[in-house]
């Protein structure tokens, strides 16, 4: 499959104040090659592709595209050269339809009618069914990704960059995406595939460049390596999976029955008749593609959205109509997915952020007055116990890296001796070592007798820590099943199959 050189990067370096994101990075991509860029969060993958896409200018080093010097100063220039990118977070307008969204991303959009027929043609050719007239707000995450991909394909790119494309897809959807990518590659389009999911890379990619702390540590042919070998190259250490103690389950601590909530978020997903129960010592893993009601479920459990009294019971007491602090008093702590702005206030210090959810259970407020000394001690304790890397507890939350802030937020909730823990995306954007530490801490709390609900889009994570497994699909929750004995196909079906991808099978 490898042919002539398409893009060559040599000696590229980029430093930000306080951190070197890329240091002397070199690698080549041939035409028609699927090239993996592998690395932990913070390894410098994003910075590297941003330089290729013209969003960031390298401090040193050169790039060549088809033998020509290539120095894009803005994405438009990169697109004109033939580089297209599908971002991890979509930039789509929910209130516009598919064709309008595609037109917004083009330099010279053709008339709407012509564009619609071109969208249809491309989507059929590559097995990505998409109706140009549909409103983006009504599409699933997988379908939205198709909008982004088709937007790129219409520019007839020579190099397609895909940033963590499968994090929003079900296993079946992943398979179909891979078919599309292989077809593109066979036609000569090179693909730069960014991921930290090793099995995917082994199935899909021809070559892999592994980054660690901004440097290329290895290049390899993924098919010839085991996932474990690549993981250890990526992390630079041997990994220990979290230890779980066999434990006897206790009484039911969290019981949810008939929970239906209209989403408070525009274009959000309403919850429909959700029911489950979690016993003390049990970890329930809730999977699902992003946007299937995860945020809403967390809001309904944390108390930010209130429902009828008996829909949510904590230790047998109806708490559905109570707010977050009453639920905290009853023993339920929660950690939302969005760290900055929801779980933490960006401009407040870590001490102030410790007070945010710790006030009730840690007794940080008496008679309405804040005990700042006690709060500072609580914050310092979290920083120490969860290895939060920060110059001190006085710094603003936004100054912390995503992973460190996540450790702080999760640590703040787990340090409150909770009876029930609800966490959405506990290790999102956290490096492997920190993720392992967070998972271990969650399992430790479960072993101490907490009932735990982990909502995550990372299936490997759920299979690693959960006792029971359920999936959210368009606001409905499947009946929980024991993790042991579940196959990946069954999980995929629980997550909602391929979201209308069956059509694509026939088309492709």
């Amino acid at each position: 499959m490898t042919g002539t050189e398409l893009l060559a990067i040599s000696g590229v370096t980029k430093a930000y104040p306080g951190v070197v994101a890329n240091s002397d990075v070199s690698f080549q991509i041939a035409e028609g090659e699927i090239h993996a860029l592998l690395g932990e969060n913070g390894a410098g993958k994003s910075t590297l592709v941003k330089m290729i896409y013209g969003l960031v200018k390298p401090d040193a080093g050169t790039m060549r595209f088809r033998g020509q010097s290539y120095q894009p100063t803005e994405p438009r220039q990169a697109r004109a050269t033939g580089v297209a990118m599908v971002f991890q977070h979509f930039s789509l307008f929910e209130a516009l339809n598919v064709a309008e969204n595609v037109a917004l991303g083009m330099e010279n959009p053709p008339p709407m009618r012509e564009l619609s027929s071109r969208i249809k043609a491309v989507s059929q050719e590559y097995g990505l069914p998409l109706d140009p007239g549909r409103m983006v707000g009504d599409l699933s995450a997988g379908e939205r990704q198709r909008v982004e991909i088709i937007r790129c394909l219409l520019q007839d790119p020579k190099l397609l960059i895909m940033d963590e494309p499968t994090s929003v897809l079900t296993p079946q959807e992943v398979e179909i995406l891979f078919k599309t990518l292989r077809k593109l590659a066979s036609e000569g389009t090179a693909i730069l595939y960014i991921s930290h999911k090793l099995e995917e890379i082994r199935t899909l990619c021809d070559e892999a460049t592994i980054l660690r702390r901004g440097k290329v540590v290895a290049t390899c042919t993924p098919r010839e390596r085991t996932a474990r070998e690549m993981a250890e190259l990526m992390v630079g250490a041997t990994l220990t999976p979290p230890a779980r103690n066999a434990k006897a389950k206790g009484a039911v601590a969290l019981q949810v029955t008939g929970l239906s909530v209209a989403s408070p978020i525009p274009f959000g997903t309403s919850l429909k008749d959700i029911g489950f129960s979690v016993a003390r010592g049990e970890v329930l893993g809730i999977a699902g593609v992003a946007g299937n009601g995860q945020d809403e479920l967390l809001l309904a459990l944390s108390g930010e959205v209130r429902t009828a009294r008996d829909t949510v019971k904590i230790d047998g007491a109806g708490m559905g109509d109570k707010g977050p602090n009453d639920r905290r008093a009853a023993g339920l702590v929660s950690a939302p997915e969005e760290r900055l702005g929801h779980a933490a206030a960006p401009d407040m210090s870590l001490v102030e952020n410790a007070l945010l959810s710790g006030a009730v259970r840690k007794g940080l407020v008496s008679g309405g007055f804040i005990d700042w000394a006690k709060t500072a001690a609580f914050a310092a304790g979290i920083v120490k116990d969860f290895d939060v890397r920060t110059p001190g507890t006085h710094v603003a939350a936004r100054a912390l890296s995503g992973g460190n802030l996540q450790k702080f937020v999760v640590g703040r909730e787990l340090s409150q001796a909770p009876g029930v823990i609800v966490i959405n995306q506990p290790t999102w954007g956290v490096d492997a070592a920190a993720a392992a530490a967070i998972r271990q801490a969650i399992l430790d709390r479960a072993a101490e007798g907490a009932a735990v609900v982990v909502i995550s889009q990372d299936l490997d994570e759920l299979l690693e820590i959960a006792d029971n497994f359920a999936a959210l699909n368009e606001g409905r929750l499947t009946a929980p099943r024991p993790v042991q004995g579940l196959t990946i196909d069954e999980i995929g079906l629980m997550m909602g199959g391929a979201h209308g991808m069956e059509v694509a099978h026939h088309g492709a």
Partner: protein
Amino acid sequence: MLRLEKRPSPSRTWAWATPVLAVVLTMIAGGIMFAALGKDPVEAIRTIFWDPLFNPQFASYSRPQLLVKAGPLILIAVGLSLGFRAGIWNIGAEGQYIMGAIFAAGVGLALYPVETRWVFPLMVVAGIFGGWLWAMIPAVLKTRFNTNEILVSLLLVYVAQNILASMSLGLLRNPEGGGFPGSRNLSQIPAMANPELIAGTGMHWGVVAAFVVVIAAYVLLQRHILGYHIKLAGQAPRAARFAGVNPTRLTVLCMGISGALAGMAGMFEVTGPAGQISIDFNTGYGFTAIIVAFLGRLNPIGILLAGLLMALTYIGGELASFMLSLPSAAIQAFQGMLLFFLLAVDLLTNYRIRLKKREIA
């Protein structure tokens, strides 16, 4: 090329330095404006900032005026700042100030000529209630029907002004006033008057209340969970809900406090410096207090200083227009510049300016 770079944490130094820088820039730009009007800029600036306090000819009159004018500004601005911190925009303090004065005067005059000590405290309560009530209209409309509190509170100012006109011509008109509009002079009725407490200082009960409120607000914001919730709601509304803050309750509370303090300011004004309910009773304290609140960085201590500074530009501005025959529009433009520069240099708190050569691609 200038480039803005976001600071990792807000700069504490700049948080305090920006108001000073804004005042300096206002003096420079204002000086240029005065020069363009054909006046000596140095003399104009000196007349505004220096003469009211230290000129032997005017100081004996204008120095007490400093506290008289700063008192209501501080009282109102502290109340507004709590709401502004929480992202609740009460722009109608002027109306709440008027209603506070009307309620207080109404209660006092209804009891006339009762001469007991508790009339004055009762009027304070009535003034607070009047301002609170007027602020509850936008608060309830916002929380019930999701109306915009900026618009509703602002428009209610004009309603309040018409009620004021009606009161001074009708219900509260002085029956012994020979048909002239305006109520009895409350400052001359001992049971209702708000006198100068220490001669020659301008200190009256309203100024005392302002100082107390500054301290109370400082403690509230630094040490009390409510102050924390107010700051949280303004900075990160979703995090505030996560922390268990009830947005409806907070809106009602913040609007209520700002309205009550504005009403209190109106009460002290109508019983003291103004003396009576009249058509032109309100002089824009409620609007100027918005500037004062921001000039003081929404911090109670800052507001105390900003209120004094603003009062100084008022008194100095009057003096300048009288002494140098500067048009009053120029004085207002000068005050406007102050807010403009303050908001403009405010970004230095969160950003630093980097001088950088543009790279050639």
